[in-house]
């Protein structure tokens, strides 16, 4: 089946074309069904390929065609099928399919229904290209493509001006990161002479650890990852991206696209381990982002914004894992996070759907009994993300925490704090939205249709069970995911492990259970504050305590960026337009044009129409050529 891997990205592309060309013709849910079935078939093929790779432990490169062949450059359009890419395939097509089915219900009746599904299929196509590409260029195509689709879907309801601004913000922020990625690719080509993963990683052994070239390359690649995966300082676009429809937030801004940065670094792990400085920077950026975003999430009042900051925070967690060399942990957390964060977003969508578009949590409450399926699945998602055993989040977080402890105990302490913050804001959200408060009249809410609740239930099951793939050795598990991914990471982990100290099983158990005890404390704390005392977040215009205000205002990142970058950029653009463009360049171009036109008009006069003159001109020319060539 591996040789048919090209079908996997092709089907969503066909789905996109089919819907895009019948934009006006498709009625009802036709386009939704087409889009979902395209992804479903892709999923089946991916599943078969995944099983093949899993059982054979082989990797394969599927060459489709030579794409760019010019001089010494030879870039082929080919796919790399290995453990890492098939794992991503499973997430993208699997979660993607569920979200597509959910969207049929969620987007029902929207005037842009067909447009929505064409974009979604296009997105899946690019995302698959991103993870399947066997060289950095194909990856970059996918990288740009998902950026484009993200832009289109954030601004999906383009009639509202702020949505367009959010879309533009996401696009521009991503461009900054993309520039870094692109420069990194250029440097890779310059120093390695190829862009193929296999070729580059093979040659990477020739570089010593700490080689400055590799450090610069990896830093540039990391800049790309920062943009795409919303890390400090380029994270502010992700919360704004919640302007898009909720399934978009679930698919693009939680489960798949934003994890592209993680995937890219995990893919390039051979390069990154050669640069300890880059790894340290990644870890620091990751943990800082996780901490700040977690703090901000606690004080948000929009259900999707809370989840958005939670995503930023969790992504920071994954970067911490990458930074400390726990690549398997990062990929594992990426997987479980894809399940439970997609679940949380979809459940939040179901809440919003039930309340006819209300997103402010202060206007919610007591939904526990009215929309029981949504509540129950949301609860599972919350438990999973909080890291309560034996739900999936516990195992993946644990893997990262152990990795962090092995590298540096300060990382571990901060990571535990972040993890507790996660528990707090998630349970805060849960209690405020679903528990009843007496001072509130009953809200009218209705449970979502089946095609929305079934994906929720499937994702809930996955959120519970996915942890089973990573049960650590201490529990008698056999670390399935670690073994599965080991062909890709072993070499790099060995390099990292030279400096790290091995920890005993007892310490490991201790490290595991200290956070869990605190988690229960925090769950109770949230219960005490939001259920017992029925505390509600203050209204927007009310004065808040200093500390809370700073976090509520998102640490003023947007304001600072406005003053530091946006305003000067606007001023510069203004200057370039009014002075340089209009007064200098335009004038030069116009003068050049005028000169050409004038010459053209003048040169016409030699075409007199007089044969005598023509013959004379010919003779003169011949004589001049003869003199010029033969006598001078």
């Amino acid at each position, binding site marked *: 089946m591996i040789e048919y891997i090209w079908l996997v990205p092709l089907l969503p592309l066909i789905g996109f074309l089919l819907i895009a060309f019948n934009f006006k013709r498709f009625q009802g849910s036709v386009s939704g069904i087409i889009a979902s079935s395209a992804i479903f078939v892709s999923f089946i093929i991916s599943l078969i390929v995944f099983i093949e790779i899993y059982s054979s432990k082989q990797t394969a490169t599927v060459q489709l065609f030579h794409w760019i062949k010019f001089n010494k450059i030879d870039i082929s359009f080919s796919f790399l099928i290995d453990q890492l890419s098939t794992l991503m395939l499973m997430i993208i097509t699997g979660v993607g399919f569920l979200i597509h089915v959910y969207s049929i219900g969620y987007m029902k009746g929207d005037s842009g229904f067909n447009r929505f599904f064409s974009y979604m299929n296009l997105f899946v196509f690019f995302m698959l290209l991103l993870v399947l590409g066997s060289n950095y260029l194909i990856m970059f195509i996918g990288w740009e493509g998902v950026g484009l689709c993200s832009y289109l879907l954030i601004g999906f309801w383009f009639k509202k001006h702020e949505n367009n601004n959010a879309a533009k913000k996401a696009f521009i922020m991503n461009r900054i990161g993309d520039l870094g990625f692109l420069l990194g690719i250029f440097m890779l080509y310059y120093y390695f002479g190829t862009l193929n993963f296999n070729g580059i990683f093979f040659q990477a052994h020739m570089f010593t650890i700490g080689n400055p070239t590799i450090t610069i390359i990896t830093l540039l690649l990391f800049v790309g990852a920062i943009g795409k995966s919303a890390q400090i300082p380029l994270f502010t676009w992700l919360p704004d991206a919640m302007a898009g429809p909720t399934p978009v937030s679930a698919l693009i801004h939680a489960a798949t696209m934003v994890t592209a940065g993680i995937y890219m670094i995990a893919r390039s792990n051979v390069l990154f381990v050669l640069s300890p400085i880059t790894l340290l920077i990644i870890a620091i950026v990751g943990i800082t982002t996780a901490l700040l975003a977690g703090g901000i999430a606690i004080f948000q009042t929009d259900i999707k914004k809370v989840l958005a900051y939670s995503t930023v925070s969790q992504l920071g967690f994954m970067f911490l894992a990458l930074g400390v060399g726990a690549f398997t942990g990062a990929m594992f957390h990426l997987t479980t996070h894809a399940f439970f964060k997609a679940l949380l977003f979809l459940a939040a969508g179901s809440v919003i759907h039930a309340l006819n578009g209300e997103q402010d949590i202060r206007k919610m409450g007591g939904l526990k009994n009215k929309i029981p399926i949504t509540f129950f699945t949301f609860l599972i998602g919350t438990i999973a993300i909080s890291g309560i055993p034996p739900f999936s989040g516990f195992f993946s977080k644990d893997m990262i925490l152990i990795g962090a402890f092995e590298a540096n105990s300060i990382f571990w302490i901060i990571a535990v704090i972040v993890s507790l913050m996660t528990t707090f804001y998630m349970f805060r959200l849960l209690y405020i939205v679903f528990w009843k408060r007496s001072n509130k009249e009953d809200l009218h809410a209705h449970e979502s249709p089946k095609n929305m609740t079934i994906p929720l239930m499937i994702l809930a099951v996955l959120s519970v069970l996915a942890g089973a793939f990573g049960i650590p050795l201490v529990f008698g598990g056999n670390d399935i995911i670690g073994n599965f991914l080991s062909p890709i990471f072993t070499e790099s982990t060995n390099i990292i492990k030279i400096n790290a100290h091995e920890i005993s099983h007892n310490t490991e158990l201790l490290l595991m259970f200290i956070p869990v005890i605190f988690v229960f404390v925090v769950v109770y704390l949230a219960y005490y504050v939001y259920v017992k005392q029925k505390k509600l977040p203050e209204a927007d215009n009310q004065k808040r305590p200093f500390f809370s205000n700073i976090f509520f205002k998102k640490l003023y990142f947007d304001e600072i960026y406005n003053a530091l970058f946006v305003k000067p950029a606007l001023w510069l653009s203004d200057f370039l337009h009014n002075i340089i463009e209009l007064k200098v360049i335009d004038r030069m171009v116009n003068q050049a044009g005028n000169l*050409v*036109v004038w*010459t*053209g*008009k003048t*040169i*016409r006069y*030699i*075409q007199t*129409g007089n*044969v005598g*003159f*023509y*013959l004379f*001109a*010919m003779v003169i*020319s*011949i004589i001049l*050529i*003869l003199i010029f*060539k*033969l006598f001078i």
Partner: protein
Amino acid sequence: MNAIIALSALAILTMFFGVIQKKSVLLPLILSGLIIVFFLNVIEWGTFKHYYNEMFIADNFNIAFTAALILTTFLVFIFSALYYRTVKRPLEDIYALMLFSLIGGITMASFGNITMLFIGIETLSISFYILAGSKKFDVASNEAALKYFLTGTFATGFLLFGMALIYGVSGSFNLQAINSYIIANKESIPTLFYAGMILVFVGMAFKIAAVPFHFWAPDVYTGSPTLITAFMSTIGKVASIAAFYRLISITFLNVHDFSVDILMLFAIATIIVGNLSAMTQDNMKRMLAYSGISNSGYLLFAIIAMGPKSAGTLLYFSISYAIATITAFAVIMLVREERGTFSLQDYKGLAKQNPVEAFAMAVAMMSLAGIPPLAGFMAKYNIFSVAMNGGYVWLVIVGVIGSMISVFYYFKPIIYMYFHRADAHKKIETTKAYKIHILLVSILLIILGFLPGLVIGLL
């Protein structure tokens, strides 16, 4: 050789059917005849035959260019039905002359002896002189014929004089023999030989309408009947450039250092003057005449660089130029017939009223301007890359600048057709066959743009 024999028979048959007034048979006869000739020509591929003491050489270069010439003629004949639809008489003389000039063109692509080159050029040119004046009662047509004849014979004189000088020094008209003479006497070739070469080059430059021997072209092309202009500006150009390439690649390659700067002078002057003059034209026919001149400049690149891909690129460029030019002329004929002039103003709003014709015109113009992915782009790209590989960077820079200027005038009709509102013009009624033909030809331009390697790889 098959092709020439069969074509002569076809031309005589054409005249015969004209004499017995069978008008309806003529065009089908010619078109099917051309298809047969095409296959007769192609089956000789790879045989490398010599005829009559190397007077005529049937190598792959000859066969490829003969095929291109037959294809071009075929396309012109397809549109002749439209052009002559109001004429009652059989027109066998015009058709036969066109076929005879095709024979001249084929001879120019396959000579092995410069006397044969001369015969080919004269067969082509004399037919052209008459064809240019074939609109008997039109002053412009008469003027065109006379101007062409006067300047043409003048140029032929120089060509013949140059050949005589070459013969005088080397003692042979045979291309290989002259080449052997050059190799044997590399250090001591007398000046007279070089003078002969220059005069022959001047003659050839006149035939491809290279500056400064281009003066005849705008006047003749504008004055001649439009169908004949389409025919002359494609067949004449392709045959002459093939002859020029053959002459230099077989005979004068060992004195190429001497020829290069003359040719470069021709190429650069042609591109600059051709493009600049075309820019200010409001008359579509005249604009295309200058476009033809400037394209000669690009074609010269392949001859200057003389790389391994020169011949193939020349073939590809010729075909894409010929098809685009014929497409454009086919629309021009139509518009002129309905709206009376060749002025750009007549094209206002054509896209609304005649979308198919406007599309074909737009494709032709964009191909000539070199917009990807059309054939014209690949042709220019390849010819520039041939020049680049030969190390002629400056030539390429001039070529690119010229190409940029050309976008200005090639896009004018597109702007008029698509972005101007029609004043008082009505929709032009055309036959379905014409629509299909013109659409097919423009699609050919698009398809050709995807297969440059196939054509270039032939030679």
